[in-house]
């Protein structure tokens, strides 16, 4: 299969890569660009571990083709902290112990950031429904919901 050449932006950096026409954005990020913070839990859009943003929109990168990144801006977990400065959500996840194994964490952080951009003052129910596409098998979600609500409060105050 002949490969496609794609020019895109990942976490603000200009990036070029070759990929197969049927290769997912998740595989491109992980296998070709070395950005393994984006996780694969299912490859079928059911777990949210591969969550990234494309032009600011939250997507499952396993359901997007690498070729679709052409001319877009991709955001991944690796771009969330600014240098040494963690994002408020990242800090709150640590403070609230909102991760156990941590495999769902990058996807949930990316999804939660997208939520707070759209709705800076979500109710608990809104957080729960927004994150319903992100599976976590370890925590029972309690501490995750608390961390997101707490981050929202702090971000509104700042």
């Amino acid at each position, binding site marked *: 299969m002949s490969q496609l050449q794609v020019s895109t932006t990942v976490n603000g950096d200009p990036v070029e890569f070759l990929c*197969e026409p*049927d*290769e997912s954005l998740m595989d491109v990020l*992980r*296998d070709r660009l*070395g950005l*393994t*913070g*984006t*996780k*694969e*839990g*299912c*490859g*079928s859009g*059911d*777990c949210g*571990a591969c969550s990234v943003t494309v032009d600011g929109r939250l997507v499952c990168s396993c359901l997007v083709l690498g070729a679709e990144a052409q001319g877009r801006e991709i955001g*991944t*977990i*690796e771009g*969330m*902290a600014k240098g040494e400065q*963690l994002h408020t959500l*990242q800090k709150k*996840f*640590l*403070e*609230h*112990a909102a*991760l*156990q*194994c*941590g*495999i*769902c*964490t*990058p996807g949930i*952080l990316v999804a939660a950031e997208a939520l707070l951009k759209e709705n800076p003052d979500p109710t*608990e*129910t809104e*957080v*729960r*429904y927004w*994150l*319903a*596409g*992100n*599976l*976590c*098998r*370890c*925590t*029972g*979600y*309690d*501490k*995750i*919901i*608390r961390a997101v609500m707490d981050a929202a409060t702090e971000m509104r105050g700042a």
Partner: protein
Amino acid sequence: MPLDTQHENQIRDFKVVGTRPVRPDGLDKVTGRARYGADMSLPGMIFGEIVRSTHAHAKIISIDTSAAEALPGVHAVITRADFPAQQAGMIDTLDHCMADAEVLYDGHAVAAVAASSKSLARRAAALVKVKYEALPHVTDVDAAAATGAPLVKMGIESNIVDTHEFGHGDVEKGFAEADVIVERTFTTEATHQGYIEPHACVANMGGDGVADIWCCTQGHFMVRNTCAAIMGMSASQLRVTASEIGGGFGGKTCVYIEPTALALSKKAGRPVKIVMSRQDVFLASGPTASSSIDVKIGARKDGTLVAGLATLRYQGGAWGGSLVNMGAMAAFACYDIPNVKAVGHDILANRPKLAAYRAPSAPMAAFAIESAMTEMCEKLEVDPLDFRLKNCARAGTKSSYGPTYGEIGLEATLQAAKDHPHWSAPLPEGQGRGVACGFWFNFGGQTSSSLNINEDGTVGLSVGTPDIGGSRAAMCQMAAEALGIPYEKVRAIVADTASLGYNDVTDGSRTTFASGLAVINSANQAVERLCERAAQTWDIPVEAVEWKDGAAHPAGANAGNFAPLTLAEIAADSGSTGGPISGHSEINADGAGVSFGTHICDAEVDQETGRTTITRYTVIQDAGKAIHPDYVEGQFQGGAVQGIGWALNEEYIYGEDGRLQNAGFLDYRIPVASDLPMIDTQILEIPNPGHPYGVRGVGETPIVPPLATVAHAIKGSCGQRMTSIPMSPPKVLAALKGRTA
């Protein structure tokens, strides 16, 4: 350490233990830097793919690999013939990883390929042609146990392969004394551990036969020993490094793909990475046993239990080992019953080989027994907590599985449940409230750790038990506590198999207990050596030196008048006082403390759809001592939610053809955030005398009570007594309409 060893200082002022510091691996895990099983790449690495059976049971007539081998970019194709002949102990293990003469379940591996890209590997796998002769199959536990059932594999005479019995007293006599008897049959379907990270590994074998494996596992020493035995290697030729692990819950305590990756790497002469798809994870890893359980209990009019009898039938796949023995042991463990018997039958079925799942086998048994107890309460018209308080096991009770209990916390959790605001809160119209308890043994086991005092006064700690949910934080806390230094000074790593002595797998809630014990021992040994250096510096006998608050002090006035030497000061001089200072511990930890929990649940059943919504949930459990309370609460919450998923939705669904119908997260539905309320927790601390800080394991018990707790709440909400798990909407609806689902 003998069981009766009593540790001093259990109730003491802890400085670090019991606090809630940020975990040492936290930053890596919120920034995407942490490397899990599938995140490793090596130069020259190629990709493996496994070819799997499409039959529930069939004889393999032939495997034609020629087309796959001819595809450019394919470096190796293997079948069972590429593995060396096995010794008896390893045959079943390898059979499950790669079929021999017959396939025993849908998804059973029959061949594997390795190619230069993932897509090429997939294409090559599709080119492997396998000819089968279909054989009769059976996947249901009761059907497999019935006379005349199809035999699960060739060469056996019955699918019932083992029977275990526990108990004491005379149950016939007990039932004769009973005024009220409850007798029922319960069934539970198999569930999967559902860790979000699929199994993944990279194996790299050189031409000299020396190899490395990187993989996500709960026990890298187990992976080394198993793979080395299968491949005919010595342990020293194979080094296994445990990656970060994205959930296990017992499901990563055995090998699935590692021997295959090693065999492919050997044949290809290249590093080989295998990552299971989610479909493969469901088809060929995990799951739990499915079960069918008959329960009979008898009580006097005054509410005293006099007899309990349970017959448990568990199927755990085509190789036996359904762990029904643990179910039979755990069944009546919460009760003090004079006449009690539990019999467990281990039954084969054409399904994947069971793997442990959090308190393996106990949730099904507890569902049956606790549901029967609740029904007994209804018949006697007594409060379910008062009934349990009257009949619960206490210190001195002879347990239903043999040992006599020491200090245990069941009564305390029941009392705490009674006092909890949840129990007395008014129940909204249409909702029901349930309560049930649960038990787990907890394990110790072989453990080794090593602790190095660095010259700058910081500490490097090596443990051999993978960190599946924040255990590194707890290890650092225990080391800091024992050394008397701040938490931030200690850094823990999970060391590879070449760096430490053997460590059993992380299971049975043993890590904080056993690895913690080894860490404390290591720290204590380092303290002895630090005291020796101080004694040497002061030129006094070492007995005259004592360690407190992170420094050596002269013990009493007679020892001399020296200013204390801190750990950092002794460490800085270590080069000139005798060299590096470290501490080690190699133990076979005994004295794990059993743990009990009581759960309360409110639920509402939608009369039109049969869907159950959990509206409030409370977990109360004895932790012995909570080293890091956040992670203890997290274990309570996570375990309870897994139990709720098991109770309400999760199940393996096999078709008439013996093939799995729902091998994906869309059709095997685990709880999502919008399904749940906050999960309230209450940690009780009844110290385990077998651990210096009083630790009991905490991770297993929380999955045990939810099945019966939720069933009780459903009964309260809609009046239906559900005896079959999962209590999914179609089943509840059928019960409401008075028919079978």
